[in-house]
């Protein structure tokens, strides 16, 4: 079973990101669960969401404490929340940041992508509140081969029928420009 935890801020699309990833895996015939943890729902507050992927039915319904991957939509939450908590030794960290992965020296596999600039370039959200959830999934696809890039692009289009082309382009841009280091 693959367990992924998303951290972001209200309005960035962390909940949708976990659902798009689940949809991509579901379309590949896998069993999935995608669920948010809602605190007080407001823009700007830290938000956590979760995706589980397995070949067989999943019964485990608690939150994710030992993730295989952590996806951070907003690196500023790293100051206020212990986002790394429980990440497996061989786990993966995907961070929305313009910095190179080496600057997040954690001993784990790290991938960084400037999802904010990509989102702005593709007119996703506004300049002040760019929606980075689809771009960050492009970086995830590059670092983790459990779900294919094609499935993520297709699920992104399904989840965003109005801005399907823009979001799909953001996924591909992020896939190309993501930097890996460990």
């Amino acid at each position, binding site marked *: 079973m693959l367990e992924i935890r998303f951290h972001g801020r209200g309005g960035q699309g962390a909940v949708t990101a976990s*659902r798009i990833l*689940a*949809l991509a895996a*579901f379309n590949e015939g896998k*069993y*999935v*669960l*995608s*669920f*948010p*943890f*809602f605190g007080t729902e407001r823009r700007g507050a830290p938000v956590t969401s979760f995706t589980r992927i397995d070949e067989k039915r*999943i*019964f*485990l*319904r*608690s*939150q994710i*404490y030992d993730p295989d991957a952590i996806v951070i939509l907003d690196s500023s939450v790293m100051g206020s929340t212990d986002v790394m908590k429980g990440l497996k030794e061989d786990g993966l960290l995907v961070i929305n940041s313009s910095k190179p992965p080496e600057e997040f020296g954690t001993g784990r596999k790290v991938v960084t992508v400037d999802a904010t600039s990509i989102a702005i370039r593709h007119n996703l959200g506004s300049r002040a509140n760019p929606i980075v959830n689809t771009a960050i999934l492009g970086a995830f696809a590059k670092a983790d081969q459990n779900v294919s890039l094609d499935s993520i692009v297709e699920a992104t289009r399904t989840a965003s029928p109005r801005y399907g082309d823009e979001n799909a382009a953001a996924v591909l841009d992020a896939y190309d420009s993501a930097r890996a280091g460990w």
Partner: protein
Amino acid sequence: MKSMAQTKALVTGNEAAAIGVKLSDVRFISAYPITPQTTIVEKLAEMVANEELDARYVEVESEHSAMTAVFSSELTGVRSYTATSSHGLLYMHEMLHWTAGMRLPIVVSVVNRAIGPPWNIWADQTDSMNQKDTGWLQVYCESNQEVLDTIIMGYRIAEDRSVKLPLMSMEDAFILSHTSEPVTVPDISQVRDFLPEFDLDFTVDFKNPMGYGSYSTPDGPFMELKKDMADSMNKARAVIEKTYRDFSESFGRDYAGLTDNYMMEDAEFALVATGTLASTAKHVVNLLRNEGKKVGLVRVKFFRPFPSEEIVSSLKGLKGAGVIDRSLAFSDGGSLYSEVSASLYRKADVPLTGFVAGLGGRDVRVEEFRKMYEMVEEGSEGIRWINTKGGE
């Protein structure tokens, strides 16, 4: 092949409930929105607006009025539905008694959410456990598939001539209501073959006016009508079993009846739970089985009628059982523990541990399930509070 007509979709528990309502040809919906039920009635309002669902949707100013509205529409012979949660369900309480007493087989979805104070929007079954004495059938679901299928089966069971009692179907807040999961969606023609058209013996008829639920003196039919309700609640057991068997045949999905036993064949110890706690418990039973522990799970699916016989036959001869409540009754722990204890009285001598866990949405992790199992194995009796700050 009938099962060919079904499609697979990734939906939340609340979407699954709305789809179940649409497939059941519900013709009248009235509701008041409350977190975390809101997305059920939002979806239904959208279906009605898009003419995907040929029903009337009536917004009201409170849950008491919502239940009164569906009560009234059902009395005109129209299949009706509402959904609520937490304080909304408590506000309906008086009308729950009236609906059951009037023998109106309405189906209601309840998204289990904590009761304040303090305010809390997360999973807790105290809201629906509070309604166990209202004469409604109660089902606690463990997956989104079960949420969808229970609406369809629920109308058939409730509307059965020997039952004619309303049914509430529960889903844990967020853990099902807002969680996306693969669900097989039946075709509506398949559902129509399975679920007969709604038929009520005494509907409002303006050409032949009658009084409904009017008045009874102590010597009147009051006590006999209550006994008839209690008898019907017992008759529901056979209807549930038959409906589940027929459902398996028509849709290819197997459901157990009032309880769902998991790895119980050679078990020496058991956990007993409802809703999504039972789902995670199955995961933990698998882990413990891999470590050689002879443990199983009894999932109490129907809380009304209560599966007393099933509990006795499942637990008889075990070295110990742990009953997990995600609700509080102030009797001694929660209602599930009380009713399991009462069922065993003079029928089976099994050491019982009662657990109060996950109130107000506190997450119940694998490690807590392991701890509960260990306490059962050690023969710890009485009530234990799980993962509370300041001890058990």
